[in-house]
């Protein structure tokens, strides 16, 4: 299963590090990660594509990512 995750977070470099750490620990394969720091509006948009997860794992993972303090919004959708 392939999923696209969209995140809006505080404009802090550490956010991407925290997210990658979590995927690394859970052995989740990241196909793509893209972060756009927007200095003017003071937030970042992060887009991630991951694969090989079942529904339960994606839900737990999203909830765990959402515990990252700097993250303001997160949603995901199945893309394949």
């Amino acid at each position, binding site marked *: 299963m392939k999923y696209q995750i969209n995140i809006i977070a505080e404009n802090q470099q*550490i956010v991407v*590090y*925290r997210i990658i*750490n*979590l995927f690394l*620990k859970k052995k989740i394969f990241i196909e793509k990660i893209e972060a756009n720091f927007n200095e003017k509006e003071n937030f970042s948009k992060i887009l991630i594509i991951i694969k090989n997860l079942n529904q*339960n794992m994606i*839900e*737990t993972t999203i*909830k*765990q990512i*959402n*515990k990252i*303090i700097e993250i*303001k919004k997160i949603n995901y959708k199945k893309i394949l």
Partner: protein
Amino acid sequence: MKITGAEALIKSLLLEKVEVIFGYPGGAIMPVYDALYHYQDKIKHILVRHEQGAVHAAEGYARISRKPGVCFTTSGPGATNLVTGIADAMMDSVPLVCITGQVASSLLGSDAFQETDVIGITTPITKWNYQIINAQEIPEIISKAFYIASKGRPGPVVIDITKNAQIEELDYKPKKIFIEKLEKTNKLEKNKLKEIAEIINSSEKPLIVAGHGVLISNAENELNIFSKKAKIPIAVTLHGVSSTNKDNPYYVGMVGMHGNYAPNVLTNEADLLLGFGMRFDDRVTGKLDRYAKNAKIIHVDIDASEHNKNVKTYFPVLSDLKYFLKNILPYIKSKNRKNWIEKFKQLDEIEKKYEKKRYKKYENKITSDLVIKKLSELTKGKAIVVADVGQNQMFAARYYDFKLNNSFISSGGLGTMGFSLPASIGAKIASKNDVYAVVGDGGFQMTIQELGTIMQEKLPIKILILNNQYLGMVRQWQELFFSKRYSFTYLKNPNFIQIAQGYNIQSKKINKKQDLEKELKKFIKSKKPYVLEVMVEAEHNVFPMIPAGNAVDEIRLE
């Protein structure tokens, strides 16, 4: 008013009502220590002997006081020595604020003397971390650190402060921060509560499993009231051990790998499992696909990511436990579940039979369970017990009859040997109750240097060494699962009595069963720190036991 960053840090800590700091100084945090010098009358500093001691002491303090524990260390090795304790606090949801010094911001990334990437190292094991590189940030970030550490599911926070930020001056204004994201209040709708209550009221064989969350949310009373009203048995996890006690007729013992027979076996017979402030850890569930398969699971936890993580939940409830219990209580109906409760008693009898058999076998010997039982009797169950890790831990959890709420602490999720001695320091500072550190001969030697802290601070902590001359728990596994191949688990120990004497701490060693009670009485009576070393039966095992990978109802009685 212009003050240095270091002074602003101390003022910010005072604003958070910090009373004690556990720490160890060094180059990169010297400005902070210099500022602290002028505030000694307002804030206590405990100088430990190793930074691991500081962080475990802060954990012990946090768990007993239910406030964040604070530690100070220098950069580099000072900070890396904290790592085990930070990971421990993360696993066991303990609120900590660890302040680490760092090289000046102009030197970051240059491999400067005692520079380490503290943020990089601690990111996976903290609830939040942050590096302060200019003084102006201090008031806000410190407030944020305390807020995050204690709000919702507690956890450790690391704040790394570069040396220049400690020295620079700022216009200090006190700040109090709150974070919208964590501020979410519980809203349990009436309909939902009714629906949950209906499931509970109609269940025939319900079982509560009470975890650390009961203590964190201060819900001990509500738990007891709930179980008595509904007539539902309560089992506890290792961390939930002191959340209820045998005075509640519905208390049925501990679950998990070394828990009691009845609650483990009957987990698989229950038609409803109420997980209250616990996280279905593998040491609790055993083989997952054979865990509580006949039960609907209602899981009340404040951390949404725990719902459905390990077990499929019928009804996840995102709530503070105390709030939930208070609000559901009016909808709960009393129900006769005599037969179900009787089953626990029957199975408990079986466990007792095996226990008796063991007592007979070791009639003239000192076994660890006997020592803990005696300690419990003689202290009337009214002390705080800080257990280390291994057999000693399981004996302490199982055989001390805890009468005080929140009186058992130990390292659960991480299982950190060496936890108990330093954690008992924090516990003693947080409490007027008597504190007993129960520790094995192996674990004692992992943080033994903290005897120095106990000596210097004159803390009347009672240290009970259960000396079996083995890494006992590992030896037990070797005996049971590796055909008695005792591969490197025998310990040649030093003379612990002389070591205690070296620290000017009263001490006594006992070998004979007839001395046990007499010496325990002296130990308990003493108003000073005291090391009591009890030579216990070496090849003695903790039972019942669920072998790793087995189901809860495959628990072994011998």
